[in-house]
């Protein structure tokens, strides 16, 4: 008998169908990966198992957890099962823990809720659970508060909470999405280990094919609230039948077609840039603490080249971007575009700035929701001394929109009327409208679904070919960087540790950190 | 046995308890006759009777008063009362740096001499028909040099009650003085409770938190007390002539026709009904109606808006006349002001109402004379003399009237004095100096079983010495 058996599950929320006829099962000691695009109903499936559905949700069908029919089970029974028979790990480690209670308390609570043991006993077992998730007692006493831990460490605490009672089933809903690659690899390894050690069953939810492909025993692919395909892993990848699954796989490993163009003349020169942030003093007499966000970065970007910048979160990528764009002054160093300094005295140099544009990560936050597209994309005109007016202006808007594959009629709409991918196209149109030489893409595709991401990457390659654009492409996602850049730089703690042609760096990394990054990046199974 | 304690409500709390160094009537209300006594005193009907002076002799030229003091009188602190104390008190009040608010009362005194411990002689510069009257004021009470330092917070007098306790902002408690030299008080303990808010006053009486309330501030509530067998309402009279004062120097009010127009525009009865809920006697001049020399001149200023309009036309002023009307806090002024303002608007005078606090009224209206109209009750007894002072805030300057007053001050013959007083009343009525509204009533609410409260107020006092419970 399976540990978890879902059959014919339907779910409606306030009458809106969310899940339709979902069926699959999880056996003890096995890992089932559920993948699918955003909004496909993965999380809702997990919540149905836990019976932690939002108000107004109505489920029909059957969800059996080690023999209990979860649908319609009384609340008291459910509370007994949750945390005991089934544990759950959530995506967002930063908010999944109560900020005002110690980690020991929170882990021990799982035990105290279900077993009638003295507090001291529970704390002892909490300690053991934390040890199992590799948070040793000497560095991580029980009395720590969540804010004293990093994201990866917090996620370990959440896992410790979930496995403290050695549940039969562990549900992990995108447990690593918010973490950087190296941490992600560690957490995935930890989860796999725990499953194997305890013989737990695990339901692993993710939108990233690569993440599950090398750990799951079985894969379930969902779309629009339905299971479109399921099968054993990795075999499933070689004979996918459903068009959506095929498209998903194709998009995940998509490499845009691009013409490699070696640089001819230096466009952007960055020399010995240092940027420190002074934090408020912590103690009365202590020296002010300085964060060295960027410490002595130098590089040259050739005209027409596509240069990648990779590195884990917080290594200083965005800070460098802001410095190049002239939004923040640097303490030391020199940034020049075509020989012209970005800073002219203490003010940004308008002549230089109008030749650079940027596309940000978050397609939802980078537009003023109150303006129409026509106004949004023409914002950079502000940099021109003599911006086009009237018909010329309309023509420029149309041209920019068409060049990113949108319709001119879209300019009359508000931004909330577009999907994430379309918004990112509009962001690119905004960058293109003043025909800059350099476009900086700061995690420009990280927030997008794989399929949309593939489209945007194609668009970028296409535009580069058409307009001879130069890109500085910043990302933490190695596979993306590999697919779109000619040259790549690896950044760690504010410094560039390795630099070279993309293929060379990826195939034969010389710096240990680069190696570590490449190791950690999840890889899709090779499919013929 | 009947109760022997009483809580007496009153609107204002005294700032301190020295009646000889402030104008606040609230001080007198607590201390007069209860704690402090003077040589003479007011009886409840307004007549002057002996106080600490058993008897007195007046020299034929009217310049020397020899007072025979009561015997066996002790201050509350046990020290003896004698002629030295009288000399001290009078000298203190008329001294150069005296802070006495009624210093004028002592102005004629040239010397105070101690004849023997029981006798004191006061010499005046000129005969003064009202000297004994003056000595009855709360500002002329006898204090002791021993306790003068702390008099403001711990008053020591010779009265039938002793000061016991003061909960600031709430109440003052007096207890019976067992060693009182005269007729002992019937109550053992009297608490004065200060309730400024009229609603609260009403509620406190209704809830019997206070058993009596002197000068009850909300006449609108009296019918309710009247109808309730638990209470009785005493309607008496004060010395307060309530007037719509007019700035006689401010054009166009320097024109008697304009003033007359105002007087005819005002409907006295409506003011009494609307502001006082019917309590108050109409007056036509600045004189108390209960006084034997009062002349009823109300007919001279009948309510007649048509006549008022005609008078304004005659005066040739351009309408509308904008004028500032300052109103001090009491409800007769605030409510009366609204009623009068509405009446004046009918005839083309547009008053701008400005509600002010007392301090502001004193500074801007009374001293600064920066006003056009104001409503005020002149509560000092026998104060028609203020019309002889051209600097007084309403700035009435009439040689005729001043002449009458000069004559009056020198006159000692009662019949002639009465004649002059009547003449004075008529002059100011004819000159329409102010619009005379009504005599302010003294409204007291008390438990039906309490007897002996003053019905009238010849001076601000809550004399508790004769008050008792009937059962």
């Amino acid at each position, binding site marked *: 008998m399976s540990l978890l058996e879902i059959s014919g599950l339907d779910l409606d929320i*306030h009458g809106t169908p969310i899940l339709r006829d979902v069926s699959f099962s999880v056996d003890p000691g096995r890992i089932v990966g559920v993948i699918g695009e*955003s*909004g496909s109903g993965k999380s809702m499936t997990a919540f149905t198992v836990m019976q932690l559905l939002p108000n107004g949700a109505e489920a029909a069908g059957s969800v059996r957890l080690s023999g209990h029919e979860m649908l319609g089970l009384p609340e008291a029974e459910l509370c007994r099962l949750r945390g005991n028979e089934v544990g759950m790990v959530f*995506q*967002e480690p930063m908010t999944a823990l109560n900020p005002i209670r110690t980690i020991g308390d929170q882990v021990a609570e799982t035990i105290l809720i279900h077993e009638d043991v003295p507090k001291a006993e529970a704390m002892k077992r909490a300690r053991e659970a934390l040890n199992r998730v590799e948070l040793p007692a000497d560095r991580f006493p029980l009395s720590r508060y969540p804010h004293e831990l990093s994201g990866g460490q917090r996620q370990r605490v959440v896992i410790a909470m979930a496995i403290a009672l050695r549940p039969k089933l562990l549900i992990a809903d*995108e447990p690593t*999405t918010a973490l950087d690659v190296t941490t992600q690899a560690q957490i995935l390894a930890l989860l796999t280990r725990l499953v194997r050690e305890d013989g737990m069953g695990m339901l692993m939810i993710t*939108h990233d094919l690569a993440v599950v492909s090398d750990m799951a025993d079985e894969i379930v692919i969902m779309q629009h609230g339905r299971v479109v395909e399921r099968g054993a892993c990795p075999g499933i990848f070689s004979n996918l039948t459903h068009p959506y699954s095929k498209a998903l796989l194709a998009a995940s490993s998509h490499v845009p077609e691009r013409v490699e163009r070696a640089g001819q003349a230096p466009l952007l020169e960055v020399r010995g840039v240092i940027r420190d942030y002074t934090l408020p003093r912590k103690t009365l007499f202590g020296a002010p603490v300085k964060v060295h966000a960027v410490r002595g970065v130098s590089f040259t970007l050739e005209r027409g080249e596509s240069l990648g910048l990779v590195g884990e979160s917080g290594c200083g990528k965005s800070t460098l971007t802001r410095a190049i*764009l002239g*939004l923040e002054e640097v303490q030391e160093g020199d940034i020049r575009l075509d020989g012209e300094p970005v800073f002219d005295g203490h003010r*940004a140099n*308008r002549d230089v*700035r*109008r030749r*650079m*544009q*940027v596309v*940000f990560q*978050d397609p*939802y*936050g*980078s*537009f*003023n*929701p*109150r303006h129409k597209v026509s106004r949004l994309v023409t*914002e*950079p005109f*502000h*940099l021109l001394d003599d911006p086009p007016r009237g018909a010329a202006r309309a023509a420029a808007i149309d041209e920019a929109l068409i060049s990113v594959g949108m319709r001119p009629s879209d300019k009359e709409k*508000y931004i*909330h009327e577009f999907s*994430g991918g379309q918004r990112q196209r509009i*962001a690119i149109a*905004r960058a293109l409208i003043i025909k800059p030489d350099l476009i900086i893409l700061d995690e420009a595709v990280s927030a997008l*679904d794989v399929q949309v991401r593939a489209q945007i990457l194609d668009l970028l390659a296409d535009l580069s070919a058409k307009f001879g654009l130069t890109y500085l492409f910043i990302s933490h996602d190695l596979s993306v960087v590999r697919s779109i850049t000619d040259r790549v730089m690896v950044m760690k703690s504010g410094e560039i540790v390795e630099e070279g042609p993309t293929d060379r760096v990826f195939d034969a990394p010389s710096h240990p950190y680069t190696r570590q990054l490449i190791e950690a990046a999840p890889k899709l199974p090779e499919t013929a | 046995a009947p109760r022997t304690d009483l809580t007496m409500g009153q609107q204002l709390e005294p700032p301190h308890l020295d009646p000889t160094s402030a104008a606040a009537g609230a001080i007198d209300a607590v201390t007069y006759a209860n704690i402090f006594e003077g040589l003479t005193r007011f009886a409840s009907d307004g007549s002057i009777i002996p106080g600490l002076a058993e008897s007195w002799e007046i020299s034929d030229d009217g310049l020397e008063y020899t007072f025979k003091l009561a015997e066996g009188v002790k201050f509350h602190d046990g020290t003896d009362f004698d002629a030295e104390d009288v000399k001290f008190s009078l000298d203190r009040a008329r001294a150069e740096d005296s802070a006495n608010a009624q210093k004028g009362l002592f102005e004629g005194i040239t010397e105070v001499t101690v004849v023997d411990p029981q006798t004191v002689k006061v010499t005046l510069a000129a005969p003064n028909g009202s000297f004994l009257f003056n000595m009855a004021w709360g500002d002329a009470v006898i204090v002791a040099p021993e306790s003068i330092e702390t008099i403001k917070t711990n008053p020591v007098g010779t009265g039938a009650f002793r000061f016991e306790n003061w909960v600031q902002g709430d109440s003052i408690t007096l207890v019976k003085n067992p060693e009182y030299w005269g007729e002992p008080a019937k109550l053992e303990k009297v608490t004065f409770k200060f309730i400024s*808010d*009229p*609603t609260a006053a*009403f509620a406190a009486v*209704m809830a019997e938190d206070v058993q009596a309330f002197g000068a009850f*501030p*909300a006449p*609108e*509530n009296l019918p*309710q007390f009247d109808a309730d067998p638990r209470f009785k309402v005493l309607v008496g009279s004060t010395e307060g002539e309530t007037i719509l004062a007019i700035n006689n120097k401010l054009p166009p009010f320097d024109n008697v026709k304009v003033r007359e127009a105002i007087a005819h525009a005002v409907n006295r009865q*409506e003011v009494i*009904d*609307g502001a006082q809920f019917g309590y108050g006697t109409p007056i036509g001049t600045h004189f108390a109606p209960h006084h034997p020399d009062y002349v009823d001149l109300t007919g001279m200023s009948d309510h007649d808006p048509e006549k008022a309009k005609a008078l304004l036309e005659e005066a040739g002023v351009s309408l509308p006349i904008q004028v500032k009307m300052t109103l001090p806090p009491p409800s007769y002024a605030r*409510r009366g*002001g*609204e*009623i009068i*303002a*509405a*009446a004046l*608007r009918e005839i083309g005078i547009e008053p701008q*109402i*400005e*509600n002010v606090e007392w301090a502001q009224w004193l500074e801007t209206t009374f001293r600064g004379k920066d006003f056009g109209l104001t409503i005020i009750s002149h509560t000092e007894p026998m104060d028609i003399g203020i019309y002889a002072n051209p600097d007084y805030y309403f700035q009435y300057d009439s040689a005729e009237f001043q002449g009458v007053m000069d004559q009056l001050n020198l006159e000692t013959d009662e019949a002639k004095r009465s004649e002059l007083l009547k003449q004075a009343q008529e002059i100011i009525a004819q000159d329409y100096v102010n619009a005379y509204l009504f005599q302010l009533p003294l409204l007291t609410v008390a438990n039906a079983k309490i007897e002996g409260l003053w019905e009238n107020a010849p001076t601000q006092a809550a004399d508790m010495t004769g008050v008792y419970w009937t059962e």
Partner: protein
Amino acid sequence: MSDPRVDHIPPEATPFRTWHLAFRSRNLVIGSVLTLVFVAAALISFVWTPYDISKLAISEKMQVPSWSHWMGTDHFGRDILSMIMVGARTSIAVAVVAVGIGMLFGVPLGLWAAARRGSMLDEVIMRANDLVFAFPSLLIAIMITATFGPSAVNAIIAIGIFNIPVFARLTRSGALSLWQRDFILAARVSGKSSARISFEHILPNVTNLLIVQGTIQFSLGILAEAGLSYVGLGAQPPVPSWGRMLADSQTMISIAPHMAIFPGLAILLTVLGLNLMGDGLRDIFDPKLRRSRA
């Protein structure tokens, strides 16, 4: 990836959606109706009231409600309904101008502080705000009106001063979170000055906040005006004001309770209406709440 749309959906501006939501919000409907009733009463009073309130009729004083006087008459025989209609004018005028003063000074200050966030200027503005907050507002209002004489204008100033820091703070905190958003960064990339960004991008995006807070402050203004008039420091007679009507009725509450009840109800219902409207608007503007309502 979890759905970032949900958290980032900015207040949406389509008219249709807003109206649709507006009608679904019970608070907003009730609140707007109440508010409209009083605004209408105030407006109508300019051209017509059941009786002329400048005429006193002492002989008809304190009549209980009847067909000729729906809410009875007051101690001067004036029609209370007419007084309340004209009084609405005073309340609304005082509150509107006071809130206006608060916005006029507070919003630019808040924008300025946010634009120079972390600077000395920001610190000074915020400290000054704290300072105003530290003063007991009612007492200061009493002092102001005692100093410059009681009048509606001085009441407005007294109430207005305390609205400044409210709006300054609100604007600043709203603006601060906006300054972190990418679209502001995009505008900066386009070389716009911070003053320009403040007015072009920040201000329109905090207007929702300002409207919601505005209705709340408006209702507080009406309460404050009533309180000041009640202690005699608001509008002066003969201009009627609800607070003074209450003060006038106070000693008569046991004989003519209608004199106290109707003006009190007028204040209560107006403030209630404004608060409900504020809540309703907040529900509509705040996507987070809107989501959980759905």
